[in-house]
């Protein structure tokens, strides 16, 4: 009898901690929104003082969607940038498609091989006046391809946009602005904000999820200088720091956590900054299967970081608690209550306590995310949509949340090295 009470008490404590994290994130993001009122993009675009960026991207196929993604990256607005595209283990036919698409011819560019990656077959440059380098290499997965791209990149900054993300053409001007504010200390910048959401229930669940993530994992962790990469964000990092951290091994989150570790080990004050602007975000999910896919992708990143990092890495214990321990305890509590009630071993008041600790607190947390996000914005939202979203917290926690717990637990299973994402 005592142990379920303690479990419920633990879940209450976790929920309260999450509540205060959302509140803290809201204050931080509001401060930030009030700090930036000027549009400096035009000046950043033409100033020769802005450092160059090598955008890195990988392609695991030659589909029209992949080529479209690369075209969009080439249209980014930035003064000095190049795109380093890695063709990861493509067959001759696919390489030929890329060659034809950009009129590629062999380049004199070399790889400095500072990070380990699968062998490079050839480096190409386009015949058209595009700021682009294409690296054709043996298959090695996403992280391996990114390391190959970093070896070939020759700018002091490395930029990354995830494949499934929507991004603004001037995303990297916004990111580099943060870096220029304190170039000595800032080693990396992440930029994201919740996407505009649709009208269906799945879209609202996705919006609630993104609000919690933005306030908790972005705002609150950035305030404590524990920021890691979050799904759909655009990232800018100093190449020398990425090299010191050992490059990519288990995804973006793992990379950022290692950046924290490397910067701490250097013994100098440092910061990983957040640009909380809607410059880059995950496409808003419109169906439950898209919600599932996005939850699983995020969970895989967290699983990768948990496996490769020390548990005491900043930010990781809270991620472990929220994304693994709480879903596990909740699921066990539901099962025990269901079995106990059916067998008559526990009373109904115990079920009520578990419901209050899980469903009740879950509803309040999602509602808090909605109102705290409003506090963090300078402009007001459409009242009708805001109210609908506030109410969506109730169905979210009556069914969807329980399914999501199972997805989160399933997402932690061990996986093979990450393949290059298909569009």
């Amino acid at each position, binding site marked *: 009898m005592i142990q379920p009470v303690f479990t419920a008490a633990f879940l209450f404590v976790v929920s309260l901690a999450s509540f205060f994290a959302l509140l803290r994130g809201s204050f931080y993001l509001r401060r930030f929104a009030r700090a930036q009122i000027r549009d400096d993009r035009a000046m950043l675009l033409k100033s020769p003082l802005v450092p160059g960026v090598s955008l890195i991207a990988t392609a695991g196929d030659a589909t029209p969607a992949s080529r479209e993604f690369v075209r969009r990256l080439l249209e980014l607005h930035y003064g000095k940038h190049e795109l380093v595209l890695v063709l990861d283990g493509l067959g001759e036919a696919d390489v030929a498609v890329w060659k034809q698409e950009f009129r590629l011819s062999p380049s004199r560019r070399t790889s400095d091989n500072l990070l380990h990656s699968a062998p490079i077959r050839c480096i190409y440059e386009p015949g058209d006046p595009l700021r682009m380098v294409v690296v054709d290499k043996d298959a090695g997965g996403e992280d391996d391809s990114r390391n190959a791209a970093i070896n070939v990149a020759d700018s002091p900054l490395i930029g990354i946009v995830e494949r499934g993300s929507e991004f603004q053409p001037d995303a990297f001007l916004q990111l580099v602005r943060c870096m220029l*504010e304190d170039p000595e200390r800032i080693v990396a910048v992440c930029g994201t904000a919740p996407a505009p959401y649709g009208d269906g229930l799945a879209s609202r669940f996705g919006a609630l999820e993104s609000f919690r993530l933005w306030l908790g994992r972005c705002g609150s962790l950035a305030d404590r200088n524990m920021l890691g990469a979050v799904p759909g964000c655009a990232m800018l990092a100093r190449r020398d720091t990425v090299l010191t951290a050992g490059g990519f091994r288990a995804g973006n989150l793992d990379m950022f956590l290692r950046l924290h570790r490397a910067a701490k080990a250097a013994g100098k004050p440092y910061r990983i900054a957040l640009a909380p602007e809607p410059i880059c975000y995950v496409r808003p999910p419109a169906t439950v299967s898209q919600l599932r896919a996005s939850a699983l992708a995020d969970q895989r990143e967290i699983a990768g970081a948990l496996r490769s990092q020390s548990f005491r890495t900043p930010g990781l214990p809270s991620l472990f608690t929220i994304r693994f321990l709480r879903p596990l305890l909740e699921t066990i509590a539901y099962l025990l209550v269901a079995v106990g009630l059916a067998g008559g071993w526990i009373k109904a008041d115990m079920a009520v306590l578990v419901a209050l600790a899980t469903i009740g607190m879950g509803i309040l947390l999602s*509602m808090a995310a909605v109102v705290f996000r409003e506090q963090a914005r300078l402009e007001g939202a459409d009242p009708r949509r805001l109210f609908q979203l506030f109410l969506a917290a109730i169905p979210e926690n009556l069914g969807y949340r329980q399914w999501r717990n199972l997805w989160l637990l399933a997402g932690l299973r061990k996986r093979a090295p990450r393949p290059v994402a298909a569009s």
Partner: protein
Amino acid sequence: MIGRAIAAAVLLEFCYAALLLFLLVRALARGSAFRRRAVVSKAVRPVIREALIEYLAGSNNLAALRGYAKSHRRDLVDGVLEVHTAVSGGARDRLWELSLELSLVHDWCADTHSRDRLLRCLAFERLALACLFEPCRRIAGDLQLRGIEDPDDEVRFAAARGLAYSDDLKDVERVFELAVSQNSLARVLLTEVLRPHAVALCEGVVAEALRSSDERRVISTLEIALAWERAVPLMDLHRLVAGPNPEIRQLTLRLLPMVPSSPENEAAVVHALSDKLRSTALEAVVAAGRLKIEGAIPGLAHFLKWGDQEMSRAAADSLAEIPPKGWEILQEFGPLPGTSATQPTRPDGKSAPQKAARV
């Protein structure tokens, strides 16, 4: 025990829900007000813009604009700032004259004293635009001098941008000092407004900053001078090329082609070709080509023959910039690996060396 735990949980969640409901009601009210204001603005802004354009076209009918200044002041300010980007010369002066007439500039001056940093920053931003008009400068000049002492970075930058339009070189020098002493973002934002004063600054405060013993200050000054991307009258840079800090050496080598040529500068470049640090030597190779220094040809020829791929290409580039001796050296060495063996033929029938491709 469970009964007490449930009671505590219900109480906690009730308090929590009450707080959230309060915040929700506030957010809904704010959202409604925002939407109402947006609807009104949407209707009135085109009319205000029309009235402003008519006024700028020569109409002296101020009655309508005075009315908007009373009833829709915020929209009128937005209209003025929007039209400002589309006009220049006399029309722009007339626009700022109108802003003075309708006391918009005075409002902004009052806002510079606000305790709200956002309001203060906005006010200085707007005054920076208005200061393109001399009578506005007379009103806001002192405020901007105070603004560059503000504890907030953004407010300081906004004030500095306005101050850079001053006719008094001392004010511009203060802006330069701010740019040099602050972060890289300050330099990016202020370099552009300082560019029109580059020559005057180089004759005084820039030269002084380059003589400073504070290396950070020297580096910032060199960065600004480079970012102006124009010829500047700076002397004695050869001292910096011979200095101990490699970053200063490299930045100076990059700046040398933009300053008046002197035998000392040329000698410093030739000397820098033998710098122990490869990146400095590379900058010297590029500078030698841009300055067309014949005395650097033996050093360039050495790099062409013995340098790594990047150095050898840069040396070939520079030699190609120093005809005819540089060309002769290139012809002696023949085509670089990976370049076409056939060379373009000049109209006089002689063969010109092919410029090596840049990496």
